[in-house]
């Protein structure tokens, strides 16, 4: 027990050190740009954590990130690498947008939200499931297919916006018609945070429970830990791999819908703001633990919103925030772990002595 506590404390210490290192390195970078790092961190802190409006912005931004982060974490439990969050988010948004255009005004707002959610989850799930099927049939690595499918999804989105779904009365940048107000995600109480955050929190809890307590979650961990052992234990490995990918894609699709129906209301080029990629980082930061994924998503959203202050208050370029995000990622992932004896790899189990 004491040993565990000590190990935990060491882990927490290392994590704190990693974050501190990232902040110090970024501070040094900021100095070379002629800004005062202490002033800058102060501005970031004031403009986000101490500012009610910004907290709302952070949670709005975090909602699709949480969902897209879970979309990486679930396949990862089964040993799959889903780099396709971006494409799955887009497909979710496209499906939600398509449903909105097709059924506009025919359904009450609440029902419309539910239909959009279902459509988005289905679209995201199919998009990701395609990668799993390709892996199982023609043996292409899912990391490659999910990544490439992102570009297909982006082009599909652009085609729809520029051609069939374009708002003929819109001006400026091409986009679809705005979502009817009744079909938008409602705001929580008097805050500026929409119900998408609730969806993300509920999804986190559900995924946590599924992975932790169900037989499905257990079998995913078996497949992810040793697929050959899973096969030999008679588990339906292919079906489990597909299910993990489909559930992941559905979550990302839901993320797309949340962003569309909660923040954007129109399909437009570049609307997904690299959510899929940032969420990929969040999932890896959190080592695919659902609760930590949600935490990491909020943290990255905080950094992203804090990035606005970098521009406004410290006069740094907009891309500077990406430097900070990258430093945090490298520091946290590179922080090392409590060393643990690796299992014997070769054929004969070694005599323990």
């Amino acid at each position, binding site marked *: 027990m004491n040993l565990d506590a000590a190990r935990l404390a060491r882990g927490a210490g290392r994590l704190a050190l990693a974050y501190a290192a990232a902040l110090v390195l970024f501070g040094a970078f900021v100095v070379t740009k002629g800004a005062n790092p202490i002033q800058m961190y102060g501005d970031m802190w004031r403009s986000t954590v101490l500012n009610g409006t910004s907290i709302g912005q952070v949670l709005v931004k975090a909602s699709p990130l949480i969902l897209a982060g879970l979309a990486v974490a679930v396949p990862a439990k089964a040993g799959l690498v889903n780099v396709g969050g971006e494409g799955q988010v887009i497909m979710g948004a496209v499906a939600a947008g398509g449903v909105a255009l097709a059924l506009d005004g025919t359904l009450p707002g609440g029902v419309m939200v539910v239909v959009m959610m279902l459509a988005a989850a289905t679209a995201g799930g199919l998009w990701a499931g395609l990668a799993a099927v390709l892996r199982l049939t023609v043996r292409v690595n899912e990391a490659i297919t999910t990544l490439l499918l992102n570009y297909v999804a982006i082009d599909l989105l652009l085609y729809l916006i520029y051609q069939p779904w374009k708002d003929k009365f819109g001006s400026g940048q091409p986009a679809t018609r705005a979502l009817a107000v009744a079909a938008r995600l409602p705001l929580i109480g008097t805050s500026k945070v929409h119900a998408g955050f609730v969806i993300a929190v509920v999804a986190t809890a559900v995924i946590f429970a599924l992975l932790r*307590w169900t037989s499905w979650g257990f079998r995913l961990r*078996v497949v992810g830990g*040793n697929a050959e*052992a899973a096969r030999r234990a*008679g588990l339906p490995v292919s079906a489990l791999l597909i299910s993990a990918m489909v559930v992941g894609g559905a979550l990302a699709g839901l993320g797309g819908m949340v962003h569309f129906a909660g923040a954007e209301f129109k399909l437009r080029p570049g609307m997904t703001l690299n959510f899929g990629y940032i969420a990929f980082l969040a999932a890896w930061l959190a080592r695919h633990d659902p609760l930590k994924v949600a935490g990491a998503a909020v943290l990255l959203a905080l950094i992203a919103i804090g990035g606005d202050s970098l521009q406004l208050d410290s006069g740094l370029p907009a891309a500077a925030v990406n430097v900070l995000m990258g430093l945090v990622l490298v520091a946290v992932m590179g922080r090392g772990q409590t060393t643990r004896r690796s*299992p014997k790899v070769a*054929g*004969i*189990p070694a005599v323990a002595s």
Partner: protein
Amino acid sequence: MSLLTEEVAAPTIEGEPLLAVRDLTVRFGEVVANDSVNFEVRAGEVHALLGENGAGKSTLMKLIYGVNKPDSGELHFGGSPVRIDSPAAARRLGIGMVFQDLRLVPALTVAENVALALPLKGIRLDRAGLVRRIEEAADHFGLACDPSALVRHLSIGERQRVEILKVLMAGAKLVILDEPTSVLAPQEVDALFAGLRQLRARGLSVVIITHKLHEARAIADRVSVLRGGKMVLVAADPTAHDDRSLIEAMVGRTVPALPATRPSPRAAATPALELHGVSANGDGGHLALQDVDLVIASGELVGVAGVSGNGQRELYEVALGLRELAGGRVVVAGTDLSGGGPRAAIEAGGVGIPEDPVADAVVPGLSVAEHMALADLKSVRRGFGIDWAKVRSRLAGLDEQTGLRMAGAGRKVADLSGGNIQRVILTRALGSDARLVVAAYPSRGLDVATTRRTQELLLERRAAGAGVLVISEDVDELLELSDRILVLHAGRVAGIVRPGEADRYDIGELMLQGAK
């Protein structure tokens, strides 16, 4: 011709030892793995190191090879005190080690693996020269191998041969062999020992870790025994001790013999396993199993002997629906598997103890209890979840019933040693009421007492009416356990013999030459 009769007079070399270990102590946390151990190896001697699982043999050898660091004590090599900080330092001194978990690169050829261990001259790899040198060395040491074969296509036994050859070719003065004979046929053991004798004749030294007492006696000039981290027998003359006294030194007590009278197989009941004209391809795409016919009755134990890589792995896998057939039919307890895969075999009542549990049976991140649940998920399901209380109570019962002293239910398998992983696999398979038990090398990596307990459990399963197929490279073990022994050669049945009508060398003959 026998390794027992061919014994030559052991040369007695007096004087300064090549390697001397003085009062060496190693602690891992609270555990004292080596407690003031003294050990020495002379130039030109073969020294056998005996001891149980966890007795500290590997720790001691890893100290000598620079993997572990001592807490106190001294090492002397060639007469002067040395510090061996790393395996590289050990190799520079002329100490080579053949690990039990082999250190070859599967994607490379035999020649390329050997090249990794040799100092390279120039940038170009002189393949032809290398192949010639390997062939010469292989011939010289009596360790046949194909230099151009890919290591991943080789069986564990073949890989081990390459590994030994590699260390010998790197010019070691002292070679440490960790259980080198566990995967060799009797005749191959003779060949290996002949090679070791040649090394000895040239003044080189060999330390051999082994469980097989008759082998220690056949090859070793002196024998040392570790128990619980302490040397209980130091550099003794092996011929002065019989098996009983050596086992007692190792275990601290006597080990009971296997029951001699056993119930006869139930020929009338549905056979546990039927193979009808079974053929299957190996991983390399070649036909690894050809026209195998075998019927194992309910309550019968059939052993499988063969030089490793002659179709044992494929036989194991087809019997449990793990490998596609190229021809024939496999029937488990009356159910034709016909493409139903592992699931069909499990549902028909088949369980397996695989050759390589780390690769094929365990999930490092999961606990012991989770591995128990995995074996029989259906029966421990509760709604969408798993009834972990049921899993744990069943596990406690199994542990009691099998008496294999498994690690705690909550322990992660990644933290267990090979022997403890094997206990988990054995408890899971032998505690079940399966109709068919297929066991590949079930006692590999186990201590004397646990090996005996495993053998008893296999016989208990047999007595309970299960058909048992035991693949082993320990012919003595097969002779003790089996009703019949099937010998595989080049993927074909070279012969089926009954213990009592054939001895170790008859079987060895079939293993090496196939049916005549």
